[in-house]
């Protein structure tokens, strides 16, 4: 490369060097381009292609696709399968998000204090989030089994139940089980977000409150909670999007059953494409999911923005 001495001013880039020089632009775009190509090809293009597919009658077998307008969407909205999957998804998402927030905040508060071994304990709590979903499902299918599962045994020993429970057997129980397992796997992200925020609260705030005679509950109510408000708003939004989109856990745990009781929209998409081989129906369902999430996100953020202004 160039070994000739460079002017000092230019060497001190980018603080002194002329901004947006041609070489800066070229190098900047050049280095960024693989990322742009990857994301365009693997994210933006698929979204556009899905949108197109949802307006046609493409199947896995047909070579020719016809434009059918919004027919797929009309069919979808009129189908009981779609409406029940949407409802299941909403129940699953709301319950799992609420439980994840409760558990995540509880563990964040627990770990937000100096004690021996905190470094390792606070880190290992995120393990459930990182374990592959296939392994998580395997763990729970085996440990919740009515015959040789440890959970039933523990509940029996504690006299909380009289007979072993088939956790995935009935529609209601299966939904509860799916929510429990998903909460176990997803709460650590809420935990990390809340703990990260807790660590930025200045201790002097608590000291001042203590001087003013505030007890531990008052300190939580008037210092911790208001400080957590924004991170909780964000955590609930991101978690509900993620949980609404979650596929692996439900598909592997119940396959959407029994009797479709745990079938959410991602499972419906998967079934439409791979079992019914109807790409258009799958694409239309996925687009509906995206539209629902976009609408939800906008309304959610607007609601909190307005409240913040009026507060």
């Amino acid at each position: 490369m160039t070994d000739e001495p460079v002017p000092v001013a230019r060497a001190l880039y980018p603080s002194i060097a002329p901004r947006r020089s041609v070489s800066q632009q070229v190098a900047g775009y050049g280095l960024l381009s693989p990322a742009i190509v990857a994301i365009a090809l693997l994210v933006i293009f698929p979204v556009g292609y899905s949108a197109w597919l949802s307006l046609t009658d493409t199947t896995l077998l047909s070579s020719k696709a016809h434009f059918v307008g919004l027919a797929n969407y009309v069919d979808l909205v009129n189908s009981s399968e779609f409406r029940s999957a949407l409802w299941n998804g909403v129940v699953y998402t709301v319950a799992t998000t609420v439980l994840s927030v409760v558990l995540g905040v509880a563990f964040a508060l627990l770990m937000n204090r100096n004690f021996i071994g905190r470094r390792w304990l606070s880190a290992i709590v995120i393990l459930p989030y990182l374990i592959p979903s296939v392994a998580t499902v395997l763990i729970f299918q085996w440990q919740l089994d009515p015959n040789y599962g440890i959970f039933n045994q523990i509940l029996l020993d504690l006299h909380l139940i009289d007979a072993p429970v088939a956790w995935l057997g009935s529609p209601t129980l299966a939904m509860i089980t799916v929510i429990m397992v998903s909460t176990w796997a997803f709460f650590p992200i809420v935990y990390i977000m809340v703990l990260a925020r807790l660590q930025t609260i200045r201790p002097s705030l608590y000291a001042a409150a203590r001087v003013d005679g505030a007890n531990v509950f008052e300190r939580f109510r008037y210092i911790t909670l208001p400080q957590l408000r924004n991170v909780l708003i964000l955590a609930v939004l991101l978690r509900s999007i993620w949980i609404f989109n979650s596929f692996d856990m439900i598909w592997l745990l119940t396959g959407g059953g029994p009797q479709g009781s745990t079938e959410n929209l991602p499972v419906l998409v998967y079934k439409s494409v791979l079992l019914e081989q109807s790409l258009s129906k799958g694409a239309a369902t996925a687009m509906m999911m995206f539209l629902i999430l976009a609408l939800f996100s906008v309304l959610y953020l607007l609601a909190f923005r307005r409240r913040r202004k009026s507060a």
Partner: protein
Amino acid sequence: MRSLRRHVGKVVYPLIALAATLVILFPAIYLVLTSLKPPYDVITIPPQILPSTLTLDNFKAFFGSGGLTTYIWNSLFVATCTAVLSTTIAVMAAYSLTHFEYRGKQLLSYLMLLTYMFPPILLAIPLFLVFAQLHLTDSYFGLILADTAFALPFCLWLLRDFFASNPRELEHAARIDGASALRTVVAVTLPLSLPGVAASLLFAFVLSWSDYLFAVLIVSRQSLFTLPLVISTLVGTFTTNWGMIIAAAAFMAIPPLVAALLLFKYLLKGFGVAADSG
């Protein structure tokens, strides 16, 4: 009185925290304990929590002939390639975003975070179709590409944070001493960001290691199966060799365990930054 209470707190509090962690992690702990039981003790009625004797027999079955060695290698290969590819692309992009000024920079970095909004299943269908046409289904390369797309936004975000917080003076000093731009990157920027690069590698590795959705769509030939795929086909069949499968699940949890212990610091930092700006 007060100091006595404080001393008790010093002992009791860690114990409470430990107990809560053990309870929440119980399913994983029980998995590890069971994987160390003799094969005939794995499934008993009623179930036992503690092993009668400790043995590695289940792991021997898992690694041995008739075991799942092929799939272990497949998973290791795909996850390693994904880690290297997505981190390389993310290093370049993060360097570009932190070291150069150009039009549209802000928009581009927002666009990359936006990609997390899309349901993965929405991306998976067209990806599957396009890959089929490009003959990328049933190939490692196709799976690596898909996993890379999945891991890239987070790796980029992580590395951008690291590059931005490096003291710029060291890079300036290297340039003044006559080092070329490339040399400065290799000798100064990257070593300073080594924890970030390692975190990005580890994160992408674990993501690919765990992936089920893309794998199940892209790979259908059994010889190319990754561990999650092969395990998912083994579970629920009645001839299940539970000892081996439980050992497999315990083995699958090792990279996540390493990642949890090593990455926690960076995740905490990254989410702290994100939560502040959000």
